[in-house]
């Protein structure tokens, strides 16, 4: 079994009072609670803190933990002291592949004997949450993702062992950023007839080179040459279903949105979002001599004043 330094995780002294430990837990829980925190790795950190607190807040568990002494380093293998076998319910099993936190969560103290109640009480399995990162193309077509989960499974004595479970999940088309899916019964196993936990998938879209998603609508920057914007044009525009021709009306301005109905992401309940092409006016950065000459000619011939609305203010 690997040693974990619960005091270091909580950031408290080994002699800390129960009240100090509670205070430390509250502070860390607020900081790392997965519902509240945006810090990377918050969920892992919160689990560590929760595990440490579960053990240190209970005087009996804390005493059992303290009996290990302070000479081990985190991650170091250790042999539990002989009296642990009594406390944890007999010597018929090996501590070797157990997780310290799992063992303590199972430990119910000398009063009731180890595993008391586990034979009777129906306990639902734990729910899990996983983020699935998928591409926009995957969201458009639907996809399969490989998931791997470490869940506790219980042996005959009722001791939890961490088991890696791998499976494929089908994400139907209609996904977009921040949407959630539920995989019924794919979380932790229920005990004594309790229902199995669920697995919740949180969809996160990879940024796309061209398209930006907003719900099921997509946005695309559409650069136009100045003459295309002025004269109108018919241009080839990419969509997730292949490119389409888009008619640019004469006199199109930068920032205008041209809507391609139904060319966005499919929605779970049917129908599709739209694709919006946002017009940008692009200019050649290294115009040729001939281009420069033509622009000069245009500048001299044109009476167009794009800043007419500045009026008096600009003249001051």
């Amino acid at each position, binding site marked *: 079994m690997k040693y974990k330094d619960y005091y270091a995780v909580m950031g408290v002294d080994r002699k800390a009072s129960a009240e100090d430990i509670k205070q430390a837990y*509250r502070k860390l*829980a*607020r900081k790392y*609670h*997965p*519902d*509240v925190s945006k810090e990377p790795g918050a969920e892992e950190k*919160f689990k560590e803190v*929760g595990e440490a607190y579960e053990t240190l807040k209970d005087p009996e568990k804390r005493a059992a933990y303290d009996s290990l002494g302070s000479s081990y380093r985190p991650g170091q293998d250790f042999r539990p002291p002989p009296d642990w076998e009594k406390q944890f319910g007999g010597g018929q099993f090996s501590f070797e592949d157990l997780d310290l936190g799992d063992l303590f969560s199972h430990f119910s103290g000398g009063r009731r004997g180890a595993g008391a109640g586990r034979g009777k009480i129906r306990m*639902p399995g734990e*729910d899990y949450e996983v983020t699935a990162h998928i591409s926009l193309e995957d969201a458009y077509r639907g996809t*399969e993702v490989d998931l791997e989960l470490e869940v506790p499974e219980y042996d005959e004595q009722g001791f939890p062992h961490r088991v890696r479970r*791998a*499976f*494929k*999940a*089908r*994400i*139907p088309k*209609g996904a977009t*950023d*921040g*949407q*959630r*899916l*539920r*995989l*019924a019964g*794919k979380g932790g196993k229920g005990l004594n007839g309790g*229902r199995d936990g*669920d697995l*919740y*998938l949180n969809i996160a879209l990879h940024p796309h080179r061209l398209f*930006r*998603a*907003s*719900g099921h*609508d*997509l*946005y695309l*920057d559409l*650069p136009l040459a100045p003459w295309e914007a002025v004269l109108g044009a018919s241009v080839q525009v990419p969509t997730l279903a292949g490119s389409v021709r888009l008619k640019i009306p004469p006199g199109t301005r930068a*920032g205008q949105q041209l809507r391609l109905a139904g060319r966005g992401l499919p929605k*779970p*309940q049917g129908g599709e979002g739209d694709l*919006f092409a*946002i017009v*940008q006016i*692009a200019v050649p950065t290294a115009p040729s001599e001939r281009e420069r000459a033509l622009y000069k000619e245009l500048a001299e011939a044109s009476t167009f004043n794009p800043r007419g609305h500045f009026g008096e203010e600009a003249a001051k």
Partner: protein
Amino acid sequence: MKIEQATWLHEHYEFSLEELCELSGLTEAELRELVDHGVLAPIELAARAWTFRADRLLVARSARRLRKDLDLDPHGVALVVTLLERVRDLEAELRDLRAKLPGRQR
């Protein structure tokens, strides 16, 4: 390998009060309390048997976790969940606005 089918937690689907209890781990009394505090709203408050939009499950689960992990009373849970919902709405709005902003100018 068997492929598992995932279902959307989306407003298109609905849960009954009993289903929401089972999936969130809250008791019926706790769920009714969340409704009383305005944290959760059934589709029709006047209905004899309440049903909820499926995405309300996320709010119910979040409420259960916050109460358990942070030792909050019902008012505290209501406040935090309401603020979290606002944060989520604002994040969604921010994401929408970012999508509408032109990207890198060429």
